[in-house]
């Protein structure tokens, strides 16, 4: 009899455990979505006014639309909530005409006043939107954002009536329609936001202006969206329920994809680099070019990097081809320029290239023949997050070897945790440093304005009035040919004459999906893939 006690206890334990497991089951809900997308890191927000990261922008873009939207194939701006627009002769005034069938997912009409509210909200100092700069081409927008101007009526965006919006720019930039498709400029529901404040995305029903409405957003679990039947183009939405899963481990992402638990992986950080060679052979893995540059920053406030010949020598000694072929291996192109080729209306000029002999000569001219007398300097980089691919560190090691071998210089690799690295960059506490930049919109300006003297992204200590003037002039130039020419001179100044940065390679975008089952997703240079265009093959 007594012998039974122990087995009984274990049985009870097992029953309890199973009950608990069943409880766990209840936390997962609903059937599988039509489309499961591995979206990369957990979005910091879905509020289009404050999102900055790509996973955030992609998720937010499904919920909120702007005057224009991205063409799924080309990434070019096409009519969104505005059905058409008129552009003034001097290309500084845009008049947008909203669709008569533009309504919120809750049924109320979307008006021009909603756009005025949404844009002024982004510019309002209280929101502290980090991407408010996207609106700075609008008259008085920057002044209003920085508090120099408090009268919102002076900002160049006005509702002429319910369906007409007039926008005045201070420069005739050619990419304004592209900006209108960017999250920051999407329309958001005024009364809902004013009622619920910062937590407006947690209170249902949320009035959405995009192709989808939000069903649930559980941090680190999933974002589930459902087709918005009131969306003006709902007839062409190709799926009804979509899950966006935040996954940060590349191996987990690969497992989920290979087991069919996810249909699409579209974040390049989710591809295990160790397996790239094998994965690139698969028919369901696709790589494509987009506008992003991996480069080295030099700190121009420190000796001996104040001497341009030193910077040129370092840039010339980097064998970029070797880095692309041996380390990144994802189809990246060697970067001869800072602005990637393919950027709209712009042919980037060639930078310095690879020429170790010239590098040695320049270093000798600067007073360091064979690297003699050159102090030991550091190459700063960030540590790989979450055990990801250590591409940065591998490139650091290669650079260290190249600079030692070709120029006789001693480099110390300094790895810092992400936020510390960013702070060091900002405070110019480095000699040379790993850097990267992804274009926000398809125009050379998104790459070139960052090195203007007072731009927070400059982070090299370089201040050139000539450069500032060139970029300003380019943006005031209505003639596209002439504008291109001015930007080219600016880039020549940046790369050849002053060598503030040394570009290494252009990023390759990467996504995984089975072309036999999924369609409606195309590679494009701005790496934007509207979810409503993606569907299963019948």
């Amino acid at each position, binding site marked *: 009899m007594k012998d039974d006690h122990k087995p009984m206890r274990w049985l009870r334990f097992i029953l309890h455990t199973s009950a608990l497991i069943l409880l766990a089951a209840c936390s997962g809900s609903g059937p599988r979505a039509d489309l499961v997308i591995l979206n990369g890191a957990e979005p910091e927000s879905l*509020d289009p006014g404050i999102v900055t990261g790509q996973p955030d922008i992609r998720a937010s873009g499904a919920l909120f639309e702007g005057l224009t939207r991205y063409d799924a194939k080309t990434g070019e701006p096409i009519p969104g909530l505005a059905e058409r627009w008129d552009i003034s002769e001097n290309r500084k005034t845009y008049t947008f005409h909203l669709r008569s069938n533009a309504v919120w997912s809750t049924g109320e009409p979307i008006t021009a006043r909603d756009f005025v509210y949404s844009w002024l909200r982004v510019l309002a100092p209280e929101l502290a939107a980090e991407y408010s700069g996207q609106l700075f081409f609008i008259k008085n927008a920057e002044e209003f954002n920085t508090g120099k101007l408090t009268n919102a009526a002076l900002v160049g965006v006005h509702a002429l009536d319910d369906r007409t919006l007039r926008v005045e720019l201070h420069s005739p930039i050619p990419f304004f329609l592209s900006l209108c498709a960017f999250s920051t400029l999407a329309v958001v529901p005024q009364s809902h936001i004013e009622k619920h404040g910062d937590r407006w995305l947690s209170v249902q029903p949320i009035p959405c202006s995009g192709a989808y409405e939000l069903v649930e957003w559980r941090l680190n679990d999933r974002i589930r969206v459902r087709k918005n039947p009131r969306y003006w183009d709902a007839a062409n939405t190709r799926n009804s329920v979509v899950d966006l899963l935040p996954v940060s*481990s590349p191996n987990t992402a690969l497992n989920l994809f290979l087991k069919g638990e996810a249909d699409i992986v579209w974040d390049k950080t989710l591809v295990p680099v160790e397996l790239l060679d094998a994965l690139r052979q698969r028919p369901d893995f696709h790589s494509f070019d987009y506008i992003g540059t991996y480069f080295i920053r030099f700190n121009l406030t420190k000796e001996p990097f104040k001497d341009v010949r030193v910077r040129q020598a370092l840039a010339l000694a980097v064998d970029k081809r070797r880095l692309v072929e041996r380390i990144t291996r994802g189809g990246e192109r060697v970067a001869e320029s800072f602005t990637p080729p393919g950027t709209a209306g712009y042919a980037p000029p060639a930078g310095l290239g690879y020429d170790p002999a010239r590098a040695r000569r320049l270093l000798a001219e600067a007073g360091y023949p064979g690297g003699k007398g050159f102090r030991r300097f550091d190459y700063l980089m960030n540590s790989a997050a979450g055990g990801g691919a250590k591409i940065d560190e591998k490139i650091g090691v290669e650079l260290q070897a190249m600079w030692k071998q070709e120029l006789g210089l001693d480099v110390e690799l300094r790895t810092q945790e992400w*936020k510390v690295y960013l*702070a060091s960059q900002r405070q110019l506490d480095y000699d040379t440093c790993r850097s990267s930049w992804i274009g926000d919109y398809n125009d050379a300006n998104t790459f070139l304005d960052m090195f203007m003297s007072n731009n927070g992204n400059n982070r090299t200590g370089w201040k050139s009035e000539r450069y500032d003037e060139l970029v300003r002039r380019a943006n005031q130039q209505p003639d596209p040919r002439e504008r291109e020419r001015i930007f080219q001179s600016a880039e020549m100044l940046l790369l050849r004459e002053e060598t503030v940065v040394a570009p290494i390679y252009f990023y390759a975008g990467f996504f995984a999906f089975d072309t036999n089952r999924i369609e409606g997703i195309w590679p494009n240079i701005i790496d934007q893939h509207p979810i409503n265009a993606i569907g299963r093959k019948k």
Partner: protein
Amino acid sequence: MYFLKRILTLLPLTLLITLLAFVLVRVSPGGPFDKERAPASPEIEKQLRAKYHLDESWPRQYLRFLGGAVRGDLGPSLKYRNHNVTDILLQGLPVSALLGTLAFGFAMGLGIPWGVFMAVRRGEGGDHTAGFLALLAVCVPGFVIGPLLVMVLAIKLDWFPVALWASPWHAVLPTMALGLFYAGKISRLLRESMSGVLHLEFVTAARARGVGNPALLMKHALRVAILPVVSYSGPMLADLLTGSFVIENLFQIPGIGVFLVNSLQNRDYPMTAGLVMVFAVLLLTLNLLVDLLYVKLDRRVKLE
């Protein structure tokens, strides 16, 4: 009296721990608003700091945090700007706690028989084999065991899902990956204490009285030998309930372990302070409970 004293020390201890977390995360270089893309103007960062009261003095900020905590409001997350820390905790903690409980059950269910087996077979071949396996379980970290389990049980055999948190089946692999270390640890603790106890007088006396039944004998001996496991189980449970970064990350589980690590990396000050506070309260309470349980199990221990 003793119990009361212990409870009274909980409060200052929790305060001290949160104060440390509060200060340490602030003195570390880099801030919550350092991003690859600088805000459009320096004013925006100023506005952000003002919005989240980071422009106030530290003591003021700490008092603000405590004031909120008393009302159950741990403040907004600086990283996830549409969420506040309390919401995030309420969403993630139950998941981590459930997984932790499962892993706790798994570790106890496997570790105790394992330890008893080794103690009874002490010095024999079975002890050596089981001992080696226990050593492996303790030494091989979760980020090795986890992927191995996934490779064999999920990919090769297709018995369980590779990741996510949606059905009972999804809980099996993470439970094993998380619990195996603790099972090994428990078995090793128990082996030592049990071997000692089996030679104690009361066991010999019981034998002499004619208790020949090995199972019954085990029951007597286990009651004493389990004590080190009991005292270990407090911190272990606290550890398990609060989630594991590695396992949650690997299996894409929406728990709280990932947030603790990420909040530090993101310099999400309110999130770090809030999580540390909750973890501290959990750990201190569980330790107290273990001490109480000790008295129940071993009459020699008195509360004083």
